[in-house]
């Protein structure tokens, strides 16, 4: 099938490569990357609430690279935000605290290749994510693959289309003027094709995240990302 041939030749390229020089510079700015304001908050919270059990933040190295993953205690596949929410109830999606902790933990895996396990209990979610990725949705009747595989590098209203990689998320989106989660970005994609947006934390969004993480296999994380 031609889709398999397409995936066989696939090399994962980070979304930062499809941004302009100003955005690249913003992401690379080790002080002025706006996402670091959320990381600072995460570091504060870590000291207050997490260090007691988890010790130093450096102990989280490599953790985010394996997410989303199936959690036996929770009985389902969860992404990093959900795992943190399970540990510390009361953190709302897109709240400064949850974004801060997620970005702080995620960036401990910066430079490490994404490596998720899609076998066994995660297999059903992976299959669901893959079928969502390939399924045409919304009034514009587009599937993720229509843009993010078939038209990568081509411009859509002057903007180059990326592969839709998850590695640099949570990311500071200039359009939002804020740091945001990958789920927020995926919801925005649903909005983009004029489809109903799944709720934050929906199984479909986690399934899609799992599929994207597997598709990104080997790509190094760089959190917080910056995108236009």
């Amino acid at each position: 099938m031609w889709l398999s041939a397409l995936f066989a030749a696939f090399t994962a390229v980070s979304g930062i490569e499809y941004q302009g020089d100003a955005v690249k510079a913003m992401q690379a700015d080790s002080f002025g990357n706006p996402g670091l304001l959320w990381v600072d908050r995460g570091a504060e919270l870590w000291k207050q609430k997490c260090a007691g059990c988890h010790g130093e933040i450096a102990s989280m190295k490599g953790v985010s690279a394996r997410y989303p993953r199936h959690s036996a205690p929770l009985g389902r596949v969860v992404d990093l935000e959900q795992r943190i929410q399970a540990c510390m109830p009361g953190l709302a999606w897109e709240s400064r605290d949850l974004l801060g902790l997620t970005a702080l933990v995620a960036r401990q895996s910066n430079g490490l290749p994404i490596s998720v396990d899609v076998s066994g209990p995660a297999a059903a979610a992976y299959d669901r994510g893959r079928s969502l990725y390939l399924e045409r949705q919304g009034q514009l009747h587009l599937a993720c693959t229509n843009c993010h595989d078939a038209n990568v590098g081509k411009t859509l209203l002057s903007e180059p289309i990326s592969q839709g990689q998850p590695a640099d998320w949570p990311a500071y989106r200039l359009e939002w003027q804020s740091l945001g989660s990958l789920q927020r970005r995926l919801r925005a994609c649903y909005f983009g094709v004029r489809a109903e947006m799944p709720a934050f934390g929906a199984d479909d969004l986690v399934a899609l995240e799992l599929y994207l993480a597997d598709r990104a296999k080997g790509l190094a994380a760089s959190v917080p990302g910056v995108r236009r």
Partner: protein
Amino acid sequence: MIEGRLRVPESVKAGEPFEVRVLILHPMENGFRHDAGGREIPVHIVNRVACTYGGREVFSVDLGTGVSANPYFIFFVRAGQGGELKVEWADDTGERGSASANVHVA
């Protein structure tokens, strides 16, 4: 309390200008955005940032709505005797914030 971060070099040479970087967490609402219910979100901006060093104000900014959200400034200060460099900021509701660093003059 408006959060922010500040960076000065580890050590500076007497009499030489050194780089100061400050990044402030603030939405800088310009009054033109609408919320999900269609209501205008009112103007809410940091309108002043001031840097003092050696007890004197050495740099300041009057900001308007044309400064980006999460304002970022890189500027220079001439190294004197060393001591505390403090950057303070305030928004149009009276909320304030600050960050300070010790400047070591080599």
